[in-house]
């Protein structure tokens, strides 16, 4: 079994990394949060042209036919750059949609979102989306936006939805696990970014005559974050290769670990930055709030831990 990314996967990551590094994603995120979806929508379209939106849509439906490994690699970068938009939702729809036309539109870069109660009861960016869906029971339905709800992450513009016409439905379990995996990868990327920015900051910020990063109390905290992220990554990448029978267990373990690691990164990042870290104007806030929101999106840590427990100790779930 191969655990190293292939050269194509590495090239894909480096291409995407360069594109995002040159796209001022922070400005797009801030504009998106303020209700101006223009820059974010342009970025969304560019990423669609790169194939990011349709990675796990089958080739015959106009998608890339890629594996969950590419999905994870791409979503890690989306998290690292705080790219706005309903990315995990599109990953969900890649498996949930069975309607050829709707899938083709998704693959072409249509901004689509979905609400999946109880774990994700609101449609992220519902007002900005061209297509809104809702999963109820074992069916996917079209949906209409009926109102708005505020998220702790201002770039996640949540919408309440009214259920519409039922649609041909794909594999909703697979869809849910894919969205969970995408969210785990997103958290991992966001955590890495917070750690990297914090390490940069503590090397510059001076207090008591020296860089604060030279104090052991700071170093130890950041080392703990490094360890947490390094232990979460194999779970996230491993879940991308999970056999179907183990997928639910593995993506839940990945989400729980990635959420813990990213949340630790955000807490430590905030503490090391001090007061400036609390300000909305400072870019760190983009990642802090997103991590907080994603920790509970697509299943709370408790839900995912229960799923892992149920898988390893079948009797415990009874």
């Amino acid at each position, binding site marked *: 079994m191969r655990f190293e990314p292939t050269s*194509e996967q590495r*090239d*894909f990551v480096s*291409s*995407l990394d*360069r*594109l995002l590094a040159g796209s001022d994603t922070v400005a797009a995120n801030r504009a998106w949060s303020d209700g101006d979806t223009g820059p974010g929508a342009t970025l969304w379209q560019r990423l669609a*042209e*790169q*194939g*990011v939106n349709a*990675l796990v849509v089958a080739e015959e439906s106009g998608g*890339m036919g*890629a594996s969950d490994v*590419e999905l994870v690699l791409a979503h890690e970068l989306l998290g690292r750059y705080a790219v706005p938009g309903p990315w995990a939702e599109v990953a969900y729809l890649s498996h949930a949609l069975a309607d050829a036309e709707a899938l083709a539109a998704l693959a072409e870069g249509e901004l689509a979102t979905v609400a999946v109660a109880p774990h994700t009861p609101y449609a992220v960016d519902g007002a900005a989306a061209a297509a809104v869906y809702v999963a109820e029971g074992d069916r996917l339905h079209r949906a209409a936006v009926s109102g708005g709800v505020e998220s702790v992450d201002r770039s996640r513009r949540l919408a309440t939805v009214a259920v519409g016409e039922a649609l041909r439905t794909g594999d909703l379990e697979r869809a849910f696990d894919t969205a969970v995996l995408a969210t785990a990868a997103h958290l991992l990327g966001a955590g890495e970014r917070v750690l990297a920015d914090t390490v940069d900051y503590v090397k510059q910020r001076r207090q008591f005559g020296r860089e604060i990063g030279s104090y052991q109390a700071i170093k130890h905290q950041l080392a703990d974050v490094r360890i947490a992220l390094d232990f979460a990554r194999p779970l996230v990448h491993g879940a991308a290769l999970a056999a179907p029978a183990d997928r639910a267990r593995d993506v839940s373990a990945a989400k729980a670990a990635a959420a813990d690691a990213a949340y630790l990164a955000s807490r430590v990042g905030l503490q090391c930055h001090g007061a400036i870290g609390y300000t909305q104007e400072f870019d760190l806030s983009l990642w802090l709030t997103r991590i907080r929101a994603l920790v509970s999106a697509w299943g709370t840590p408790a839900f995912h831990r229960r799923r892992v427990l149920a898988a390893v100790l079948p009797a415990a779930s009874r």
Partner: protein
Amino acid sequence: MNIVVCVKYVPDATADRQFESDNTVDRVGVDGLLSELDEYAVEQALQLREKREGEDIEITALCVGPEKAVDAIRKALQMGADKGVHVVDDAIAGSDSVATSLVLAKAREKIGAEKKVDLVMTGMASTDASMSVIPAMLAERLELPQVTFASVVESQGEVFRVRRDGDTATEIVEGRLPMVLSVTDQTGEARYPSFKGIMAAKKKPLETWALSDIGVEADQVGLSASWTAVEGTEARPPRTQGEIVTDEDGSGATALVDFLASKKFI
């Protein structure tokens, strides 16, 4: 139309530059990539094909360099070029631009023997040596007109019209195929390989030629056959702290003027 785009594999500009004991650039022991300035040439070739929809336009990426240089070709293929030709031979190591242009010209002739080449495209310079002379040398060797430093490229049929932005004037230059065309970084952002492009590149034809395949003798190239050689290299001195002028008694402006005058800025 048959287009050959010359692409160079250069050391990553963000990494430390290393030199071999003979003062040639270390191209094997460091991370390399497709020269950014050549990406613009690939991009312009691809845009040409997109603009001239319906025409049969084939784009070949040609690279001279060590084995790892195949990465530069692969990048061009991922961006959308149709096939790659890699000239690799130990004897080429250390070649200056005169020798490199010979290899490129001979490789271009071999490509042309199979199918007529209409246009040879290059970037405006390499990001490592920054000589900017290859397009001119190549044009001379191939006995083709050269249109260089194009910042805007337009074409109609066999006629290419480009804009050259100089320091003192902007020229509009026209050329007729076949010719050598070099483009600048002002031509427009080069595309990033998409997932589809990356997967498609795996299946594209890539030929590897040695010097003997293109009819070049080993003693015509390499360090010993080069007209120029680097005598020595030195690391850039570390940045020193600038001079701070403090205006305490109103003499600050004079000090500033004196400084600028001493550096011949005014």
